[in-house]
């Protein structure tokens, strides 16, 4: 029997490891773009929670959707948490990067994103960074597709104004 062409059976851990290798950095960047102060920690925590539920997720697409939801929710919780504690968080590596080290365009975009509401920012990042369609955004955020459309429209209008102001400076 020629077994050379038989694929290796996929193990539970092989699937999880492959997803981690493929998606850890994107999930960390998602948390960063959503405004979290410690995206590394959020991405790690999301994968720990995914690990606990790995057996219940029948395919990688469901796992990826779970990851996205978890990162969005953890980022939201983290931002809310930061707002209610009196003292500002210690500067982290990302913030420690000097303004000179960031391209001007990056600073402009970062400042423009900061003018959005939390929900607007989530919709913009999921749409234009993760390239999710409206249904996937709705599923990720647990809102209606109509709400996604309206929020996107308002967010883009706000970004247009913010970027125009930045350009005029």
């Amino acid at each position, binding site marked *: 029997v020629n077994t050379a062409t038989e694929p290796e059976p996929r193990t539970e851990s092989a699937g999880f490891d492959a997803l981690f290798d493929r998606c850890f950095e994107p999930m960390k960047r998602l948390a960063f773009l959503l405004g979290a102060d*410690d995206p590394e920690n959020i991405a790690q925590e999301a994968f720990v929670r995914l690990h606990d539920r790995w057996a219940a997720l029948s395919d990688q697409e469901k796992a990826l959707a779970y990851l996205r939801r978890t990162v969005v929710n953890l980022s939201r919780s983290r931002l809310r948490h930061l707002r209610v*504690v009196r003292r500002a968080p210690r500067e982290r590596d990302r913030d420690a990067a000097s303004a000179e080290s960031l391209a001007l365009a990056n600073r402009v975009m970062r400042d423009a994103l900061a003018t959005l509401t939390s929900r607007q920012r989530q919709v913009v990042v999921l749409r234009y960074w993760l390239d999710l369609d409206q249904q996937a955004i709705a599923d990720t955020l647990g809102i209606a597709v109509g709400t996604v459309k309206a929020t996107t429209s308002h967010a883009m209008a706000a970004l247009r104004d913010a970027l125009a102001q930045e350009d005029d400076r």
Partner: protein
Amino acid sequence: MNDLENRVWRGLRDLADSVPHTPDARARLEGRLTARRSRRPLAIAAAAAVVVAAVAVPIVLVKPDAHRPATTQTTSPSYTPPPGWLKLADYADNGVAKQAGLTVDPDGNGYCLNSSAGAQPTTYACYEVPVWGEAMNPARYVVAVGVLGTAGPMRNTGPLQDVLLFVTAPEVAKLEVEGAYGDPADVREVARTTKAVYWVADFDGPTQGKSYTVSDANGHVLESAIE
């Protein structure tokens, strides 16, 4: 996509690319998973019943669905904790039940963190009680350390990464601790001297990004921070 959409699409990618790569991400994840695995069996047993008798008496772990002991792990019959030894947390180390503990110097000026699973505890680290309050700049009322210390062999990858010892100024009457996402940690006071108060905070998750608030007996906030 129109010009604005193109600009946002491109701008988000440029911004995301400014985030540095994490070279040891897998190792960090393994550390977190190891810590959770090490504590879970003990947590399940504790939820049902953990009978801890006096010194030299077996620790009996009872399964939730059983009326008789499922596993019996016995500390050494000769084991006698040093005077003043205080248990901070239970954990499993390669299947061996251990206890993280604290001893406070008789004069109250220092304390040691250790682990016991046999005849004698293993001391991982000893610390001086710091100078508190307005004498420091900025004023300091709190220090926190892992319950296995900062120099123990398992401090980064082993169990109990999510349990911290908080040492506070003696005027602190209340300590509130939250995890990075606002979930309250389980906090209990374990010792109080004229020099310091010792508390254990169990986060049931990572401690990075934690916050704490300490107050005096009148409810005045002495220190509040996110770390």
